[in-house]
C-alpha cells in the first residue's frame, strides 16, 4: 500500500465505505453484461432446440429452405453472410487505411480535419438510409452501368455471369463496404495519431522519405490497432441487416456469380421471423441466430488472439 492510499484510508476509516460499494456496483454492472450474453445464448439455444434435434448437422450443411414442407438448411445463408462480409472487408480495408493515412500524415491540417469529420458523419447515418439509397440510387446504377460493363468485359469469368438485376451479392458488398469504411477509417485514424512523434522524426532523420516513414515507422506501430479496426468493421459487416436485406435480392442460393441475388443470415431472420407461424420455422430461424452469434464470437476471439500475437511480437522484438 502506497503512502497516499494509507493517508486516504486513514481519512475515511470508519466513516465511509465508498470505494468498496463503488467496486461492488461496478462489478455488478460488469457481471450483468456477461449474464445478458449468457442468457441470450441460452434462451436462443432453448428455442432452437427443436430444429437442432430434427436436422442435426444437416442444418448447417443443407441448402434446402422450405417453410411449407418444414425442411430447413442454412448453408446458403451462411455462405451469403461470409462471402459478402469478407469481400466487403477486402475492398474496404485499403480504402479506409489509405484515407486514414491521408488524413493524419499527408493532408494539410484543415483539409484532413474536414475529411475526418465527414467520415465520422457517414458513420452516424442509420443503416436503413443506406438501404434506401442502395435500392433507389445504387442498384439501378449497378444494373444499368456497372453490371453490363462487367458482363461485357469480364463475362468470361464465372464471377460475372447472369443477367444484371442490380440487386444481388455485388450490391450487398458495395453497401456493406460503404457502411464499414467510416468505422475502420476513424479508428485507424486514432491509432495512427497515437504513433509517437519521436518515432516518425527518427525515421525522417535516418533519411526516410514520407512513404518509407509511413511504411516503416507508422504502420508497424499501429498494426494491432488497425487490425482491431478491421475486425470491428467485420463485426458490423456480418451483422448488418436492414441495408443488406434491401439490396441483396434475398434468394437462398450458392452462386459464384457476384451478379446473382443471394441471402444472409441476419436478412432471413428479419424477413421471416414475424410471420413464421410454425414452431419448426421459428426454431430454425433461432438456430440461424445462434450460428450468427457463434460466428461473431469466433471472429472476435480470433481478433483478440491476432492482436495479442502482434503486440507480443512487437514487445518481444522491441519497437523498430
Amino acid at each position: 500500500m502506497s503512502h497516499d492510499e494509507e493517508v486516504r484510508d486513514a481519512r475515511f476509516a470508519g466513516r465511509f465505505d465508498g470505494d468498496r460499494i463503488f467496486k461492488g456496483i461496478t462489478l455488478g454492472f460488469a457481471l450483468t453484461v456477461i449474464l445478458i450474453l449468457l442468457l441470450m445464448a441460452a434462451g436462443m439455444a432453448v428455442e432452437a432446440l427443436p430444429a437442432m434435434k430434427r436436422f442435426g448437422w444437416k442444418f448447417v450443411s443443407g441448402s434446402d429452405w422450405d417453410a411449407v414442407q418444414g425442411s430447413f438448411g442454412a448453408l446458403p445463408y451462411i455462405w451469403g453472410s461470409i462471402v459478402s462480409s469478407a469481400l466487403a472487408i477486402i475492398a474496404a480495408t485499403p480504402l479506409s487505411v489509405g484515407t486514414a493515412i491521408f488524413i493524419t500524415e499527408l493532408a494539410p491540417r484543415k483539409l484532413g480535419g474536414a475529411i475526418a469529420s465527414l467520415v465520422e458523419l457517414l458513420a452516424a447515418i442509420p443503416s436503413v438510409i443506406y438501404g434506401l439509397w442502395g435500392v433507389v440510387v445504387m442498384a439501378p446504377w449497378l444494373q444499368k452501368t456497372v453490371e453490363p460493363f462487367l458482363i461485357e468485359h469480364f463475362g468470361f469469368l464465372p464471377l460475372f455471369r447472369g443477367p444484371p438485376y442490380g440487386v444481388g451479392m455485388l450490391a450487398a458488398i458495395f453497401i456493406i463496404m460503404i457502411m464499414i469504411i467510416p468505422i475502420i477509417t476513424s479508428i485507424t485514424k486514432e491509432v495512427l495519431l497515437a504513433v509517437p512523434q519521436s518515432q516518425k522524426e527518427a525515421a525522417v532523420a535516418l533519411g526516410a522519405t514520407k512513404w518509407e516513414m509511413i511504411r516503416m515507422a507508422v504502420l508497424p506501430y499501429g498494426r494491432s490497432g488497425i487490425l482491431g479496426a478491421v475486425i470491428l468493421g467485420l463485426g458490423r459487416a456480418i451483422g448488418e441487416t436492414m441495408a443488406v436485406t434491401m439490396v441483396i435480392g434475398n434468394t437462398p442460393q450458392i452462386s459464384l456469380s457476384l451478379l446473382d441475388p443471394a441471402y444472409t443470415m441476419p436478412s432471413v431472420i428479419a424477413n421471416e421471423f414475424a410471420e413464421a407461424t410454425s414452431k419448426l420455422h421459428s426454431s430454425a430461424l433461432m438456430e440461424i441466430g445462434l450460428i450468427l452469434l457463434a460466428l461473431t464470437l469466433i471472429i472476435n476471439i480470433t481478433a483478440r488472439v491476432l492482436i495479442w500475437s502482434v503486440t507480443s511480437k512487437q514487445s518481444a522484438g522491441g519497437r523498430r
Partner: protein
Amino acid sequence: MFNKMRSSILVLSALCAMVGAAGAETLINGAGATFPYPIYSKWFSEYAKIDKSVKFNYQSIGSGGGIKQISAQTVDFGASDKFLTDAELKAAPGKLIHIPTVMGAVVVTYNLPGVKTPLKLTADEVAGIYLGKITIWNDPRIGTNNPGVNLPAKPIILVHRSDGSGTTAIFTDYLSNVSPEWKSKVGMGTSVKWPAGLGGKGNEGVAGQVKNTEYSVGYVELAYAMENKLPFATLKNRDGQYVAPTIKSTTAAAAGAAKHMPADYRISLVNQPGKEAYPIAGFTWLLVYEQQKDAVKGKKLVEFLKWELKSGQKMASSLLYAPLPENVVKMVEKSIAGIK
C-alpha cells in the same frame, strides 16, 4: 428491508389502481397482422371517440406473432392474415373464433416498356410464370390472350416478396388452388421456397425492383398498387371473365364465397365463383376467445366488433381495403353474439 420494499410495492400498486379507477378505462390489448394495421388503428382511434371508457392497443407484430400471443393468452385478441390450422386451434387453451374484418387482394404488376393496355393473364399463365416454365414474354400462351399487344422476346424477370407476409400467403394460396403442380412442388405459406426469381423486402421492395427492371413481373398488395398507380394485369377468373383488381371486385370474391362460407370463416377466397370476382383475394381475421376471461373486457370487445361491422366497414374503401359484402356482415354479426 423487505418490509420496506413490500410496503413500497403496495403503495405503488395502490397508486396504479387509483389512476386506473380515475380513468375507469378498460385497456384491450391486441397483436398480430401488419397488413390491416392502418384500418385497425383508424378504427381504434375513431372508436375511442365513441366509447371513452375503452382503449385499444394494437401491436402490428405480424400474423405469426399474433397467433402465438393469443394462444399464450398474453393479449385479448389476435389478428392474422392466415386462418389457424386445426392443430393450432387445438393447441389454444380455449375455443378461438375467427372474425373476418376486411379483405385484401394481390395484384400482378409488371414492367413492359411500350405496353399500354393492361395485360390479360389466365391462372395457368400466372402459375407457369412463377413456376419458371413460361420464361419469355412472347410465349404463345401469353400471346393468344393478348392480341394486338406487342410482347417482346425478352426473358421474364420474376420478383417475389422475401419477407414473410400475408400477401405471399394469399398469392401462393391462389397458385396452389389453380395449379396442382404448384401445390405439390411449392405449396402455400407466408414464406415459401420459390422455384425462380429474386426477393424484394415488402411491397415497396417488390414494386421498386419491378419499376427498375424492364421485362420484370411481381406481385403486390392491392392498396399499395393503387396508391402508387402501378400497372396491373387483369386476371381470368373462375367464370371465365377477365377482371381488374379493384375494391369492388375484391368484395365480389367474398360475396361469391358466401354460399359455402363455413361457420368458422376459415376459408380462402381465392378463385371464387362470380362474374365480377377477382381471383386473388383473402380475408384478414381477428382472433378472439369465445369464452372471455374478463367479462368487462369481453363485453367491450363485442361492442366494438358490432360497431366495426356497421360503421367501421364504411371506412374501409377510403383506406383501400375491401369491405365485407352485406351477406357476410350478417353472418358475422350472428357469430359475435356468441362471445361471452
